[in-house]
């Protein structure tokens, strides 16, 4: 069964959930195929596109995770979108954005699909389901001294209708799809509307007042309370993941002290081999 991305369906569902998209400041560009929605959003932002453009692709040929990771996506199966965002908050608060969009995606999935209540957030930018990776978040920003020129592309890639057998061999054991639980083709357009409705409810209030969303984010943490191993690039930190800090940093309790992790090449739980990526 084919599930095309439809702006009409997105708009209609969004209207039911949150209101008219124009009044919400959202505009849509639907693409049958693109290299990367984040690249498209970055180009749009660079040419001055205003806050709130959502670029959605039916098929992405070269999506990117953080740094080197590639995002595999066969045509018509998964949800890939990027939002052009022009936050007015200081850039040191922009590190909260991956957590806020993660919360919106998790809530949006659970609101759109009855029976799914187990979406977790793995610091800093993964969505987990059934202890495996359901999706990823990539936020890329352009910083200019004239703050009116600064913006970010908030990208999300989510496994929706892909069957486990369709995953590439090397990720089959560690990737998850919503289809595994629902066993039916889901409307990606309706799912996107739910995610955006949650985003609109969460983001404006919580970007400057992160505390208001922190508890909800932490309650979905894949890492909190677990033994973790964090590869920072210069060292490996092992300890207990405690919580996230005021700007979204990961706090790890080692045998000696609490370490604040702001950047990591790799984070893994060490209490379960099945969930170590």
């Amino acid at each position, binding site marked *: 069964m084919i599930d095309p991305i439809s702006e009409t369906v997105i708009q209609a569902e969004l209207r039911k959930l949150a209101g008219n998209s124009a009044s919400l400041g959202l505009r849509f560009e639907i693409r049958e195929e693109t290299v990367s929605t984040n690249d498209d959003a970055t180009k749009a932002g660079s040419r001055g596109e205003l806050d709130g453009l959502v670029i959605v692709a039916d098929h992405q040929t070269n999506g*990117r995770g*953080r*740094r*080197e990771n590639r995002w595999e996506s066969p045509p018509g199966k998964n949800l890939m979108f990027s939002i052009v965002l022009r936050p007015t908050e200081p*850039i*040191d608060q*922009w*590190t909260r*954005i*991956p957590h806020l969009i993660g919360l919106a995606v998790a809530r949006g999935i659970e609101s759109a699909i009855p029976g799914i209540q187990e979406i977790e957030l793995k610091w*800093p*930018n993964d969505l987990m389901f059934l202890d495996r990776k359901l999706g990823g*978040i*990539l*936020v*890329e*920003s*352009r*910083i*200019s*001294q004239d703050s009116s020129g600064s913006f*970010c592309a908030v990208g999300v890639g989510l496994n929706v209708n892909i069957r486990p057998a369709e995953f590439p061999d090397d990720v089959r054991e560690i990737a998850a799809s919503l289809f595994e639980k629902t066993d039916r083709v889901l409307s990606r357009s309706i799912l996107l509307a739910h995610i955006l409705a949650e985003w609109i409810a969460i983001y404006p209030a919580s970007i400057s007042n992160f505390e208001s969303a922190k508890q909800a984010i932490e309650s979905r943490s894949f890492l909190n309370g677990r033994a973790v191993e964090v590869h920072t*690039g*210069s060292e490996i930190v092992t300890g207990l993941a405690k919580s996230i800090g005021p*700007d*979204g*940093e990961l706090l790890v309790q080692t045998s000696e002290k609490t370490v604040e992790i*702001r*950047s990591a090449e790799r984070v893994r739980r060490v209490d379960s081999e099945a969930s170590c990526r």
Partner: protein
Amino acid sequence: MNLDEIKKIVELMDEHGLSQFKLEQDDTKLELKKGGYEVAAQAVPQFAQYAQAPGQGAQAPAAAPVDVDPDALPAGEQEITSPMVGTFYLAPNPESPDFVQIGSSVSAESPVCIIEAMKVMNEIQAEIGGEITKILVENGTAVQYGEPLFRVKTA
């Protein structure tokens, strides 16, 4: 923070041979940086006033003679500094070439590096035009707010 307090900090910087001072307190952000020929002010109006005061601060070359400070900023060069805490990358991803190298010409809009913080990939623009003369930070290392990343010959 008043002018007298800032003057006192500058005196202490001289006394202890400091070239850089940063303070963030409540709503105040103060950053004092002293090279061979300039003291740069950022963000706080109080210091901007001080920097313009005759005979003090902004163009006071005597404090740090170039020949005794190998790290001093040569005349005609400016630094690109980090706008945030994070990890410094010279290329947008490991498969791509570096944004710039020593000798590269940049304009204000040229991207020069990525500063990554909590997986937010921030592409930093040069903000000044000229030629890159020095890359001051190693790829993949942590940088602090205001830390010099590149030197650019603008003249």
